[in-house]
């Protein structure tokens, strides 16, 4: 009975993380399209939500372990997963509050690393895995996307520069709809898998699912797809505003270059078995599309804040994951600790969202995009 309660808490927390993942990452696929008026805000998030939902069904290759190759699989218990998820949710909400794009995957890895450290010490962390799966991709993704998008905008300006701006802008807006669709589908394919993996692992640990690496049950697939789609549809408008108009003021050609640059880097990396962060790639591409036109067009101070958030993602999510594990452990191995932590987090979120809503709807709706 006790373990069933913990299982339910882990499943609900995993779906909450999935929602924040969609909510936080909406900007990656829709921000440039909204900014260049390729699509109306609600249409863009609606399309992204549908394609994220569909993407979750495309690939069912679920990761057997959370943060596999980064922490010792033997010490990953439902309580460690729960604490890791809380660390990731905390970081996603904090960066959303400040309107900063950051990687949800790295936040989840950070949370689990912190919880594993609190549970079993430094020996449970695999430094080589951390280097390979977090640090190197975090350095490579923005640089390659920056160069690719910079090159794309220079080529685009050279090829269509002499034409009337009207048809050119209409053409690039149309192209952006295709690149938005590809990005959203790709995001659903990649990110919904994480939640499916977490829930599947929790089910195996609880004895509710047999086998070494079984396929996730249908309800897991549908609920993970629904949570990420709902999160996407809710729209993290603060981050959308940052990505779409605060880093650079972009024209449709720049929006197209940023989206296709980011998408091409992500899909090429996936093809080579070298998964990169969607957020890092798209942000790097937006910076590249702006800097190639004019270096001073980029708000480098804001870019610096974003880079700082990326550097802090792993340690901050890890600290919250470790703290959550510690607090949960005070109440023993049972369900009381996770229940109390979940209750406290829900109350905190209620207060934060309540205060933001009191300041006016412009901070939380499409109006601010």
């Amino acid at each position, binding site marked *: 009975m006790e373990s069933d309660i913990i299982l339910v808490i882990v499943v609900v927390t995993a779906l909450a993380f999935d929602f924040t993942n969609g909510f936080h990452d909406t900007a990656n696929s829709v921000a440039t399209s909204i900014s260049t008026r390729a699509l109306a805000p609600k249409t863009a998030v609606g399309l992204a939500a549908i394609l994220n939902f569909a993407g979750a069904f495309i690939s069912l290759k679920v990761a057997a372990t959370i943060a596999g190759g980064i922490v010792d699989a033997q010490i990953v218990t439902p309580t460690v997963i729960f604490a890791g998820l809380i660390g990731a949710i905390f970081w996603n909400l904090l960066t959303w509050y400040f309107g900063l794009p950051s990687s949800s995957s790295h936040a989840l890895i950070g949370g689990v690393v912190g919880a594993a450290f609190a549970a079993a010490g430094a020996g449970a962390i695999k430094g080589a895995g951390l280097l390979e799966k977090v640090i190197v991709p975090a350095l490579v993704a923005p640089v390659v996307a920056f160069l690719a998008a910079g090159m794309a905008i220079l080529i685009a300006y050279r090829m269509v520069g002499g034409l009337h701006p009207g048809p050119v802008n209409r053409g690039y807006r149309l192209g952006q709809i295709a690149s938005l669709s590809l990005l959203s589908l790709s995001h659903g394919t990649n990110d919904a898998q994480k939640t499916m993996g977490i829930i599947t692992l929790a089910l195996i640990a609880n004895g509710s699912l047999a086998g070494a690496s079984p396929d996730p049950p249908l309800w897991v697939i549908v609920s993970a797809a629904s949570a990420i789609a709902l999160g996407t549809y809710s729209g993290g408008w603060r981050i959308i505003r940052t990505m779409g108009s605060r880093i650079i003021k972009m024209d449709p050609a720049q929006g197209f270059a940023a989206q296709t640059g980011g998408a091409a880097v992500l*899909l090429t990396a996936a093809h080579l078995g*070298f998964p990169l962060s969607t957020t890092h790639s798209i942000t790097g591409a937006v910076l590249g599309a702006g800097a190639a036109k004019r270096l001073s067009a980029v708000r480098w101070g804001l870019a610096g804040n974003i880079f700082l958030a990326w550097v802090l993602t792993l340690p901050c999510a890890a600290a919250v994951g470790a703290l959550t594990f510690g607090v949960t452990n005070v109440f023993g191995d049972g369900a009381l600790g996770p229940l109390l932590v979940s209750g406290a987090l829900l109350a905190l979120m209620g207060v934060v969202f309540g205060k933001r809503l009191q300041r006016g709807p412009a901070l939380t709706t499409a109006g601010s995009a």
Partner: protein
Amino acid sequence: MIAAIDIDALLELVWAAPLAVLVVTVAWALVIRGTTGALEARRDRRAIPAARSAFVALAGAVLFAMALAFGLLIMLSKS
């Protein structure tokens, strides 16, 4: 610890990703250039330039569609 990094895949990414971006960007620019040129030539009743521009637009559209299809195939091949 450095041995954990797949240097080959990393280097391939550094040239393959910009190449993919180049293909997509050129393809879509051809679509825009071809379509605009075809419409202008048709308006001026110049049949041959209109047909030539339309062919350029079509070639760009086919290339762009192939790039999108390749992207979809990459996603599907993960399953």
